[in-house]
């Protein structure tokens, strides 16, 4: 995979490059400040872009703005956004442009090498990757019907919201795929959600429910 990395902190940038290259991917270009991001992406047309939310010069949400802007130039570009802290509002803004090929992770997750690479590949393939912390924040907001779910079902719901597909959920929870399908069926029934299998649409449905 060809990757563009936008990160101003040298330590983290180097860690990301090392990590992705160890998995056989190629970092074709890096950007170190806000204004550079979109031109670099447009020039190199990577398979996926990894963008830090907080970049110079304003150190507020330059990266997030650039990510949304890049989508106007390259509508299908998969983008994985990294943040020092998790903010629901950012996740919502990012997902407003569509959950396809979109990821929002805490920088801390980079250290979980397996999970990070998984998320990166999932996003590049058009799926979704939401940080577990974001999901749990969103889950915490909604009371009521969520309480009707069993603990196992809540786990499955969280993993669905993070963007994992059924086989991945089954691997994570160490159960069979059939069990996962049963759980997702129950969840959709209890929450009165339209049943859908395909990745990002499912995530959107779950998120839309949790956001409401």
């Amino acid at each position, binding site marked *: 995979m060809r990757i563009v990395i936008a990160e101003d*902190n040298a*330590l983290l940038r*180097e*860690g990301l490059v090392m*990590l992705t290259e160890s998995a056989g991917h190629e970092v074709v270009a890096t950007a170190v400040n806000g204004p550079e991001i979109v031109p670099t992406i447009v020039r190199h047309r990577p398979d996926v872009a990894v963008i830090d939310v907080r970049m110079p010069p304003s150190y507020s949400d330059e990266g997030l703005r650039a990510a949304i802007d890049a989508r106007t130039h390259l509508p299908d570009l998969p983008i994985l956004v990294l943040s020092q802290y998790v903010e629901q509002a950012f996740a919502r803004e990012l997902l407003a442009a569509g959950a396809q090929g979109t990821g929002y992770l805490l920088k*801390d997750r*980079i250290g*979980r090498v*397996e999970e990070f690479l998984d998320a990166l590949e999932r996003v590049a393939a058009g799926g979704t990757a939401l940080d577990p912390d974001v999901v749990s924040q969103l889950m915490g907001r909604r009371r009521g019907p969520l309480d009707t779910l069993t603990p196992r079902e809540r786990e499955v719901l969280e993993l669905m919201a993070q963007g994992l597909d059924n086989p991945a959920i089954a691997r994570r929870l160490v159960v069979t795929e059939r069990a996962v399908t049963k759980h997702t069926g129950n969840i959709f029934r209890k929450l009165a959600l339209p049943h859908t299998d395909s990745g990002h649409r499912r995530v959107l449905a779950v998120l839309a429910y949790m956001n409401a």
Partner: protein
Amino acid sequence: MTSRIRRARDATMAMLAGLQTSLPALGCLALVPLLLVLVPLVPDAMRPVRAIAGRERARRSEAGDPLPRPYRPAPESHRGAAWSVLTDPATWRDLCWLVLHGVGWTCSTLIVVALWPAVLVSLTMPAYWSLFPAGTFTALLVPVSNWAQALTLPFLQASLYAALLLFAVPGLSLWWGRSSRALLRPTTGAALSEEVLRLTQTRAEALESHGAELRRIERDLHDGVQAHLVSISVRLGLADRALSSDPDRAQPLIQDARTAIEDVLADLRAIVRGIYPPILSDRGLSGAIDALATAQGFPVAVDVASSLRRLPAPLEAAAYFVVAEALTNATKHANPTRATVRIAEEPAGQLLIVVKDNGCGGADESRGSGLTGIRRRIAALDGRLTVDSPVGHGTTIEARMPCGS
């Protein structure tokens, strides 16, 4: 007796010195009423008055008991300024003073000055009265027309004048001075509102400084410590993956991770020190300054007042940072061979910190944020920092902060 004469002479000289403000005051008196009628011109009309009053305040201020300006700050608009000056009690007190001082002082001075030659004139009257027609001169309001009067009355008059000079004039001079001070001094109300204004401003500055400090800590932790830890985590994760397939690749990754952990710990120590140096709680201010001094590459003489009591933590931290920054700057830019650090409590409840070095001087605040940061820290605690650094003559950094009592 001689001390009395000396006192009388000093009092007369003081009254003469007062003419430098009382004569202009007299002049102003004629013009000011005209201008006061035209209200819009009030601020301009009061300007010369305030200038003269300010001159008098400067004359009357003694070290340790200064006479501050009592005027309210004027709003921007011309009409607002006119109204503010008109309703300011200090304006009317100034005008009272103008009348009293302009007229009263001038007249008193003229009389006092005239008394001196008058004594002489009276004493010598017996010598020349006969040369002129009888009744030309008067003594004690009685026309002198015969020798009996000439020999007694002038003498009595001279005695009266002398008595006034020796006993009344010093008191008079003192009284005039006191009344001047009383009228020119700010009222308690004015002084209090001035103080409130100043405190409001310093409080706003303190809040801003505190905010900047918090943001700095947040940035340091995120960009420094978090980035390091994530980087370590990545290396260990990769090493873990490599252990089974390619163990040789794992070793350098693990080594890097361990080095990075040392860096993180050093970072954390620096951040903690920037918040509150631990040595301050362990050894107190004088112990911490001693530690700073011995850590320099040149001898530093430390003089921390032994009577210095334990101060609140922010004050001690600020004092510590002033000294640390000053010594760091000296090492970095000035190349000194010696330095002194002095910390003492001044009588007015101020903590004084002086760092002096004999380096090359020429300290330029605009070139680095170290001094500016310290200045803001001190200002947040209601203090002041002065830097005196002539090129070639070493640098002296002085900080003063109120420390209560």
